[in-house]
């Protein structure tokens, strides 16, 4: 295959395995019995996943993500919409970088 064809082969291979991961959980849960432990674990999965995404970023990413996380939660808790909270907290970080 030419280099160009190999690039497209790589793109399609990545796309295919990524799509398999997207639909895979749905089908996996079909063979896992419902109720009890699995049911309760599933209820806790969303929060646990987001915590897992965030904690290394907050711990190892320096001050910027930590400040941003705090600002986003505070602005959100104050009743602002998600759009305002996300871009407000990002703006806080951009402002600090401008000043420091």
């Amino acid at each position: 295959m030419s280099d160009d064809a190999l690039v497209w082969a790589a793109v399609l291979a990545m796309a295919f395995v990524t799509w398999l991961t997207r639909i895979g959980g749905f089908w996996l849960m079909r063979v896992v019995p419902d109720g009890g432990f699995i049911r309760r674990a599933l209820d806790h999965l969303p929060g646990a996943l987001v915590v897992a995404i965030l904690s290394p970023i907050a711990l190892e990413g320096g001050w910027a993500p930590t400040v941003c996380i705090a600002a986003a939660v505070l602005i959100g808790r104050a009743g602002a919409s998600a759009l305002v909270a996300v871009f407000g907290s990002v703006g806080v970080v951009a402002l600090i970088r401008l000043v420091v």
Partner: protein
Amino acid sequence: MEHSSAKSNAPAVTFTLAGARRGAIVCLPLALASIAFGLGFGILARDTGLGLAQALGMSAFVFAGASQMVAMDVWTVPPAVLGLAVAAFAINIRHVVMGAALRPWLRDLPLLQSHAALTLMTDANWAQAMADRRKGERDAAFIVGSGAIMWVGWVFGTGVGHLAGGVIGDPKAFGIDVIVPAFFALTLSSLWPGVRRLHPWVAAAVAAVLAHELLPSGAWHVVVGGLVGAAVGGMMRED
């Protein structure tokens, strides 16, 4: 637990245009973030030597930012197809866990509808959908609408980034690198279970940080942390 008791008499799951529109509107900030990240990927792809069509094709078909960025990092000429596919699978394996969490929502829908939602599922609109589901959202097209608007932003950003190349300054000056933590922090704040039910989160955080330190790079820490946190939650007594 209020979540499981509400489930028995929950209204039926729907799949409507109105739901898709709600998802698109709620996730508009995410679509703007997608444009910003797409810009970053487009610039990176150009640096790596991908043509405009190839960069656009990767964003359109793969539609998973982290794995695409990593692919650019390990890219060779000619590309190692198998290695790239394995890396993409490892980084995106977290989707399996996310899709599993969506099953209670999607299982009663026709396959075409449930799989449209799964195909457009990303970290961000998944988290948003899970949070909105707690607040009573029952329309699965919410995921399709939010995913579609993020897809448009991602592909558009990729194209602009590739075309603009090195003209744009340091994206960090605009705080583009902290959009993801900001967004996830908000999601988390809406999922807050209360201090007395926090142990799944603590377990997830500890496991994720350890896995991040010990395991090869990729997104394994997300899978490990998510599973450990969910398992601890599964062992908790209902009260």
